[in-house]
């Protein structure tokens, strides 16, 4: 009898653990959704005092320029090398321009730039807001009747949303230049057919505009996750460090999942 009772207690404990884990996540998701709406409602200050947002564009956009430009160039160069290696088996190396441009503009530009942005700028935003919370700066603001969401969170959110599409466009442009350098200058693919075939098959609306829309969505996701994790962090050193890690993991996974959904909508059919 005692044995049965003990086993029952174990099962109950396990179920409790499972239920707690699930409900905690659902509560957090609900809070995140409420937070998202709150950012939009409190965005007035971020636009009226635009220098607040402009400062965040500087921190998340301008300071990410180097890593975005350099990785874009290298990704494009690798695409040039790998693409040439595969295409030459079929004797169609002139299609190298199409391969480099389409893969960058449609997928790699928005996605890789977003992953880099999440780890470069998203983590910084989380750490900053988390530390503000840990050192009770956010509570102090509330004491002074300053809304921390309007003053701290919204400018960082919009700064990220503005920066992301520009960074993705720069990544794609640098990648195309990298592919051009390797394909045309180094390997010797014909320059005319490289550009003309690229222009013939890259569509402005279908490819470039959809890429921009993708990066805009990714910008919203990253900024949202980053400010939320910072705002929701445990106000301790350990809590901030965990929140920073969560930002990178969650936003990376969310980007890849959102990319699949967006691609399914944008590039299937027709």
């Amino acid at each position, binding site marked *: 009898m005692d044995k049965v009772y003990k086993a029952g207690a174990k099962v109950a404990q396990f179920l409790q653990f499972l239920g707690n884990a699930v409900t905690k996540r659902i509560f957090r998701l609900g809070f995140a959704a409420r937070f998202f709406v709150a950012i939009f409602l409190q965005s007035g200050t971020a636009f009226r005092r635009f*220098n607040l947002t*402009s*400062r965040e*564009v*500087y921190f998340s*956009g*301008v300071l990410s*320029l180097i890593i975005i430009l350099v990785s874009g160039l290298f990704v494009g160069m690798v695409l040039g090398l790998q693409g040439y290696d595969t295409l030459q088996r079929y004797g169609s190396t002139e299609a190298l321009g199409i391969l480099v*441009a389409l893969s960058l*503009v449609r997928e790699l530009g928005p996605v890789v730039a977003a992953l880099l942005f999440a780890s470069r700028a998203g983590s910084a935003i989380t750490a900053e807001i988390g530390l503000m919370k840990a050192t009770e700066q956010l509570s102090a603001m509330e004491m002074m009747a300053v809304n921390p969401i309007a003053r701290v969170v919204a400018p960082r959110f919009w700064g990220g949303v503005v*920066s992301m*599409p*520009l*960074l993705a*466009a*720069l990544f*794609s*442009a*640098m990648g*195309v230049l990298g592919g051009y350098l390797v394909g045309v200058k180094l390997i010797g693919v014909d320059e005319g057919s490289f*550009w003309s075939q*690229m*222009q*013939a098959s*890259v*569509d*402005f609306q279908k*490819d*470039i505009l959809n890429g*921009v829309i993708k990066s805009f969505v990714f910008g919203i996701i990253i900024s949202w996750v980053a400010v939320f994790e910072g705002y929701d962090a445990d106000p301790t050193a350990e809590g901030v460090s965990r929140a920073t890690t969560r930002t990178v993991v969650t936003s990376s996974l969310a980007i890849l999942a959102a990319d699949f959904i967006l691609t399914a909508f944008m590039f299937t059919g*027709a």
Partner: protein
Amino acid sequence: MTRTTIDLWVGFFVALGLAALLFLALKVGNLATSGSGETYAIEAKFDNIGGLKVRAPVKSAGVVVGRVSEIRFDPEAYQAVVKMQLDTRYRFPRDTFATINTSGLLGEQYIGFEPGGDTDMLKSGDVVKKTQSAVVLEKLISQFMFSKAAGDGTGSSKE
């Protein structure tokens, strides 16, 4: 970091990003070449369009003179109706011959125009009467195989 320096850098960054977008639109994409100038629409009916797609080029003498804007199926004639937007700078006689060609062996398909000798020109909304369907490679191969098999039915080693 003062406010003006930050503004300077942010302005620089936004300008650079927009320049990248412009580069993608003009140099990588086809914004500069497509949608420029006035067009007029004509239609053509084909028995089989093969792999023709919307936005495929319409060429005459190898020069792009327009693009395919719409492809639909005519349920009464059991034919494909292809709508094309042609550049108003180019006029074609009414008896122009429209064919579906393939650029290269495996390349994309396009519509080729061979102008006739009529003095009347095609107007917007006109239908091209003389068309030739796409060449389906599988059909050609099977025709060749069957004629080959029928030709030497004895199966002798006549190579």
